[in-house]
Structure formats: C-alpha cells, structure tokens
C-alpha cells in the first residue's frame, strides 16, 4: 500500500469526526460554551478572591488545560462512540484497519479542536484577566499542549477499551475519567495538598508533570518534565497495545457484533 493510502486510513477517522461534529449543534457547546463557562467562572473567582498574579496564572492554566483535555479526549473516544451510537461498528472492523489508525486519526481531529479551544481561551485570558499564556514563548506552550493531547489520547483509548470490553454502557467512562484526572493531576491546586494515597496516584499521571512544567514558566519552581514525557509515551504505547488486544478480544467474545445490533 502506498503511503497516501496508509495515511488515509488514519485520516478516515478524522474525516468522519469532522463531518459529524460540523453537523452537530452540540459541537458548539463542546467548543465554546463549556470551556467559556469554566474559564469565566474560575477567572471571576480569582477576581473575587483578589488573588495575586501568580495564583491567577495557576488557576487559569488549570482551567484551560482541563477544557482542552476534555475536548481532545472526547474526540479520540468519538472514533468508537460514533460508530457505537450509529451501530456501524461492524463496518469499521471488517475494514483492514488497526488500533493505531483509529486512535491517531481521531487524535488529529482532537488536536485541531483542542487547539481551537486553546486559542479562544488564551485570547480571553489575555483580554479579561490580563494573563498572557505566551509569556514564556511558543516552545513551553507546544510542550504543554503535547502533554495535554497525549493524556487526552490515553483517556480516549481507555474509553474505547471499556466499550469493547464492557459494551454499550461503558461510555459513562468517557465522562468520568476526565473528572478523576481533574481531581488528582493538580488542575486547581498543587498535588501536595492531596491526601497521601492520592498524591501517589497524581505522581503517576503525566498531566501532573506537564502542568508543573508549564506553570514553572510563570511561577518559578521545580518540575520533572522528563518523567511526564516518559510516562505519557509509556501510557500511549501501553494503551495502544491494550486497545489492539481488546479489539481481538471483542472479536472473540462477539462484542463487536453485539455493539452493531
């Protein structure tokens, strides 16, 4: 197969997600409404609490990271969710595609949507709260976003695995996982305030390290970006391996058929 053909196997998922999103009013909510609500409430809260500049940056970075994460992770999960909702999973899995085509294809679209959300929120932060995300230059922003997107991919993969393993109802996982991430990865507070066992978990979540790294641009402090990168890559590889296996398992258990009925 030519490289363009191979590339199209990836882009197929992005294409499908793009068309579905474009025709779905809910997309506007995902892209604008919820991220705006969340950013404005956090931003206004910082005003109300008369927080200092560093605290404001701490919270705004958290709020923006969470919104971008949520949009991107749901896009990755959509690659199976849309198929499941429209009962067309059969058609996808009779085609010669692999786990990585599906995940990276939909991730491409997730990155596009995530970047749109990021751009909007960053602009708002600048005008409403006087906080400039680009203060440290473009490189930290790109590293930070790469971290957020890789965590989004891992969450999306986890949702896909849950669907293939547990069936229809597993899509609740899609909505709860990012909540857990929010709790433990230090979105709104440093992880040191977490109870000890949760802090251990927080140290296993790559997003924690990417947040620490990016925040260190605005609030001098130490970070362990390398650990974050290693964790993110390991989880991605592990996730893909497990996803491929869950596809094979769903072909064994007949789940792939049941999801198409």
């Amino acid at each position, binding site marked *: 197969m030519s490289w363009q053909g191979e590339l199209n196997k990836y882009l197929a998922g992005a294409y499908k997600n793009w068309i*579905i999103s474009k025709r779905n009013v809910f997309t506007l909510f995902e892209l604008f409404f919820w991220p705006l609500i969340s950013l404005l409430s956090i931003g206004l809260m910082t005003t109300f609490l008369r927080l200092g500049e560093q605290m404001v940056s701490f919270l705004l970075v958290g709020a923006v990271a969470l919104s971008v994460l949520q949009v991107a992770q749901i896009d990755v999960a959509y690659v199976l969710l849309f198929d499941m909702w429209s009962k067309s999973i059969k058609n996808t899995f*009779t*085609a010669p595609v692999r786990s990585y085509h599906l995940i990276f294809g939909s991730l491409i679209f997730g990155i596009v949507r995530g970047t749109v959300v990021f751009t909007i929120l960053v602009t708002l932060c600048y005008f409403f709260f006087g906080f400039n995300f680009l203060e440290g230059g473009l490189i930290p922003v790109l590293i930070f976003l790469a971290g957020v997107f890789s965590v989004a991919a891992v969450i999306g993969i986890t949702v896909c695995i849950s669907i293939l393993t547990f069936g229809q109802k597993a899509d609740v996982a899609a909505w709860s996982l990012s909540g857990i991430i929010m709790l433990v990865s230090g979105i709104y507070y440093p992880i040191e305030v977490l109870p000890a066992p949760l802090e251990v978990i927080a140290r296993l979540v790559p997003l924690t390290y990417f947040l620490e790294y990016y925040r260190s641009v605005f609030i001098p402090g130490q970070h362990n970006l390398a650990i974050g990168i290693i964790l993110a890559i390991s989880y991605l590889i592990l996730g893909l391996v497990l996803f491929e296996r869950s596809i094979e398992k769903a072909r064994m258990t007949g789940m792939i058929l049941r999801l198409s009925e």
Partner: protein
Amino acid sequence: MSEKAVDAQGICKSYKSIHGKQSIVLKNISLKIDQSEIFGLLGPNGSGKTTLISIFSTLIWPDRGSLRILGMDAKSNKETIRSQINISTGKSNFPWSLTVQENLKHYAMLYGMHGQQLAGTVDEVINAFELEEYREMKFEDLSTGLKQRLSLAKAMLNRPKLIFLDEPTAGLDPEIALKTRKLIRGIHKEQEIPVILSTHNMLEAEMLCDRLAFIRKGKIVALDTPDALKHQLKLGEKVIVHYVGKLEIKELEKLPGVLNIIASPGKVEIVVDRTNENLDSIIKKFAEVRILDIKIKEPDLEDVFIELAR
C-alpha cells in the same frame, strides 16, 4: 482460481452471556465454497447465519476450527484478507449524519484508497448503484431500500474478490427486493466474484444461489443445489384444494412436476415444482369434482425444516 473462496473445517463458536452462561452457536461447521459460486446460507432466526458470515469475513474469530479465505489462513493473513473482501448486511447502519457520498468516501479511506482513485471509485459505485440522486442525502434520511443499496455500494468500494451479504433483502418491499437480487446477480456475473449470502427467503435462495446450506441450531443439516434439495425434500409450491366429489388421486400423482401429494377427505395438497408449468394439467384433473376453494402456498422455511426434521 483453484483456491476455494472459503475453506472452513470444524468451525465452532460459542458466546458467553453477561452472567457467564455459555451458549454454543456453531457446531463443527465444515464448508468449502468455490470461487464461481453464489452460495446461500438458509436457516431460521438464531440458527447462526450471521455468526458464520461474521467468522468468514474475519469480523469475529471462531473458538475452534481452521479457516482459509481465498486460499489464505484467516488468522495469519487477516489484513490482506480484509482488504480483499467486503460485507454488506441487510439492516446495515452507517454514521447517520454523513451523506451517501461522505459515507462512501469515509469507508474508501478506511480501505486505504486515496486521491483520484478514491474519488473515481466513489463516483463509480454511486453510478452503479443508482445513488446519484441521493448523493447529498444524509444516511438517516434514506429509505430502507436506499440504505441497503448504499450498503451494497460500500461493499464494492475495495473491488473485493469475495463478498458476503447478510440478509441483503431484509425489510425490502417485493419490487425493491427483486431489484436488489438482480443487482447481486449482476455483481457476481460482471465482477466474477463469489458471493456468500444468508437469507430467510426460499425464493431468493432459489433465484440466486448455486448451492445452499441449511443451518439449524448451529449445524449444517443439508447442503446442495436448490433443485437437488427441492427434489430431495420434495419441496415446491403447494396447491391446496378443497372439493366435493370423487377425485382420482392416483392420476394426479402421475402428472409431471408433481412432487408429493397429501390427501384427506375433501382436501388435497399437491406439492408441485414451481419451475414446471403444470398448473393447467393439474386443474384439469378436477373437472369432475366441485371445487370449493383453491390456495397456492409457496414453499417456505417452515416446510423445509419440517422436511429436514423427518
């Protein structure tokens, strides 16, 4: 062309329910299907047709047994096989909000097509399946017949060397069903590819298939050409006549094309070969009696299975 389209040996499949209960769906299925065939799988609901077609199309894996598709081992060549076959299911579903063209484009991409070839192929199948008018229509707005046609069109995207059709005419009105059958035959003839289909419809099986396998409770209970099966099973249309008077049953039995006669006082059921135009000579035998009622019943699966159970 010497390889079999499908060569299955000892295929077994069971499903586990959520409560852990195992139900055996396919029991030791062995089947060889030629590249020149339209092959039909017949069987009542739940007999395992969809499961078997899904295994043949490598959508799901069997618990046991060996399977070669187009001469390749299914497990070790799954990707090559998937790129060379395709499947369309009767009650097929596609992403709802994608139009006909977008759906086709999406699946063409999944099959690794690109550029001019992709656009060309999509146009080609849209033409071949008369979908031009509906090109921009969303899947959710299509009628059942059009959905089916889209599904068939999708199945031709990768120019498959073998196609599977799971109840291709399910839920279609008789006219569209007939059209679909012609389309299927056309595909088989023009593209020279083997077609393996499942159906509940005897007439469809007869019209389309070179050979049939009857599946019942996960087992193949009969396997032959439609004609051979009908003769073997003495199946055909049933002419049911209620009458008063004296009828020469023996005379009826001698008529050509009469496969079987079930007589009771005042009522006779004559099983006739549908392809034999012999209704006229049968009716003439009733000249001496007064006919109260005549019904003609097409042979259906029920008859087949009643016969097969004997």
